[in-house]
């Protein structure tokens, strides 16, 4: 690997990022600029920023590696990412979110739902939940990004972690959402180009689209040999229905991440940054193509890497065995061995861009949730201005996230495993708590404040219970169930331990929201009219 080439490319990338962060700072003069980028964002910038925030390094390296294990059935997630994460999110949720956010003068996602249901409690509880749960998600992005940088640039993990966090922190704190959006758009373009080249090169190396697929299909006995008992049937066919692999693929990966994306506060807030529905219509085109090029390519390349490693004389085995069962190493090893050196440099910057674009949005969302929603609007602690409160809160959130990513793996046996599950914990909590009341609040006038609060807290309770005590993937590394009951999961050996929290907690939250709304006092009609004006 040519360190000099990678260093030069990285430096050029960082200089451009710094310049865009500076532009964000120069063009920010008030709270609306800082929190909502002045509500006049260009559709290209908004859609690419949405996509690049959506896709982190782990979505490409982690899920690409997962595709090398699960196979191309994971492409259902790409379909859901586009159909739900882009089309339904922009067209169905986005337009109403923008209009209602404007009607209610909402500057953040918790403020939107808080004002919709006229509940300071809901706003501050949502802000607090984001502030508590998101650092673990941000910690996993920091950890993934810093590990990748330290390996590629051959620098220490500590140096990689602190320089990575510092650069992102500076442009987020100084440039606010404008700094985030400008840099996201630039980073998104790099990601698109990098993944496009990766797709074309992979198919070219393996002899074309159909031949490479056929070669992967013919490798099926290798998969069945290792995972056949758990339901694996090969990389180009779905696992046996009801098997361990099937549950993991369908519930955790497809449902957990595919639907969970709708209620992500850092994504929903982007709909409030544009001036009209026209930007959202144009954003559908850009976002749809962008996500296809991200997850679609990562999954196809991840699965096809099995053919490459199996036929490579130096390896002669499938991907998971080539990397000694370290799933996260599959995509980097494939890039380093199959691609030319110049592409390794480009891919390094692609991954850096993916990590930075996700992290910047997380920092911004945690800061605004804690500063504006919890401190300022929830418990009435104010500073000279909203922007200053948010910046101070961002500083606190950044320190906590960095602390988690740095110290947890060092001083706690299960630390690395806990951070690795940060993303799924956050997605599960957001879907269970926000989705029913967000959807209900946007579309149904009859959903009441009591119903929304009951749905929020029941979803929080159900998801937390399932994460801590039942779903082995999270319950085992957290260790709380083991400490209290002496077993890693209360589900025993049953398949319940593989069922994602969203499958349980989301229906609970939906039912409670609807039932409590039916039996509680109708909302004030004047307030409802104000929320739904123009909708």
């Amino acid at each position: 690997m040519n360190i000099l080439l990678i260093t030069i490319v990285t430096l050029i990338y960082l200089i451009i990022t710094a310049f865009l962060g500076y532009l964000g700072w120069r063009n920010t003069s008030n709270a609306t600029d800082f929190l909502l980028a002045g509500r006049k964002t260009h559709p290209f910038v908004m859609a690419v920023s949405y996509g690049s925030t959506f896709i982190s390094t782990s979505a490409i390296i982690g899920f690409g590696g997962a595709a090398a294990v699960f196979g191309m059935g994971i492409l259902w997630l790409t379909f859901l990412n586009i159909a739900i994460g882009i089309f339904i999110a922009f067209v169905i949720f986005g337009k109403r979110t923008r209009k209602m956010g404007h009607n209610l003068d909402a500057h953040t996602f918790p403020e939107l739902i808080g004002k919709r249901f006229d509940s300071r409690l809901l706003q501050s509880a949502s802000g607090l939940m984001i502030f508590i749960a998101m650092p673990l998600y941000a910690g996993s992005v920091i950890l993934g990004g810093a590990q990748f940088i330290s390996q590629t640039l051959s620098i220490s993990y500590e140096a990689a972690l602190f320089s990575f966090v510092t650069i992102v922190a500076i442009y987020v704190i100084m440039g606010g959402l404008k700094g985030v959006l400008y840099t996201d758009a630039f980073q998104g373009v790099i990601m698109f180009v990098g993944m496009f080249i990766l797709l074309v090169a992979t198919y070219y190396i393996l002899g074309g689209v159909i031949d490479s697929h056929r070669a992967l299909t013919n490798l099926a006995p290798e998969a069945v040999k290792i995972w056949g008992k758990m339901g694996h049937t090969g990389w180009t066919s779905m696992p046996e229905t009801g098997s361990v692999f099937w549950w993991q693929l369908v519930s955790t990966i497809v449902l957990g991440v595919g639907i969970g994306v709708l209620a992500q506060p850092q994504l929903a807030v982007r709909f409030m940054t544009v001036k009209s529905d026209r930007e959202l219509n144009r954003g559908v085109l850009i976002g749809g193509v962008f996500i296809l090029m991200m997850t679609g390519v990562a999954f196809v390349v991840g699965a096809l890497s099995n053919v490459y490693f199996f036929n490579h004389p130096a390896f002669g085995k499938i991907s998971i065995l080539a990397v000694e069962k370290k799933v996260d190493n599959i995509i980097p090893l494939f890039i380093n061995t199959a691609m030319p050196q110049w592409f390794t440099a480009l891919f390094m910057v692609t991954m850096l861009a993916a990590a930075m674009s996700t992290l910047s949005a997380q920092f911004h969302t945690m800061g605004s949730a804690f500063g504006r929603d919890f401190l300022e609007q929830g418990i009435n602690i104010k500073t000279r201005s909203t922007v200053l409160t948010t910046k101070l809160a961002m500083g606190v959130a950044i320190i906590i996230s960095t602390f988690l990513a740095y110290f947890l793996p060092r001083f706690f046996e299960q630390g690395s495993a806990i951070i690795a599950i940060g993303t799924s914990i956050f997605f599960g909590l957001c879907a269970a708590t926000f989705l029913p009341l967000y959807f209900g609040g946007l579309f149904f006038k009859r959903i009441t404040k009591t119903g929304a609060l009951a749905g929020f807290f029941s979803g929080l309770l159900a998801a937390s219970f399932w994460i801590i005590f039942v779903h082995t993937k999270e319950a085992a590394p957290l260790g709380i169930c083991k400490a209290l009951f002496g077993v890693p999961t209360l589900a025993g050996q049953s398949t319940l331990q593989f069922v994602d929290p969203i499958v349980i907690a989301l229906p609970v939250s939906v039912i409670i929201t609807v039932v409590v709304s039916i039996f509680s006092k109708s909302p004030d009609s004047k307030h409802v009219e104000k929320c739904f004006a123009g909708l």
Partner: protein
Amino acid sequence: MLGLGSLGVFLAYVMSIIAGALCVVYGLKNWNIPSDSEVEKEVSEEIEWEKRDPENEGGLF
């Protein structure tokens, strides 16, 4: 089936591409909806509203 081993995976592959293509078609079809005049009306409303917004007190570092 593009060399893929089962209908389930073939559909996942093709549906992902179709979903992306439909996003392109939707975006192009609605590229100028709502029209300039409607957008301008909304923007001018917003400018008026921004002037009255108590949040815009400035006060960066």
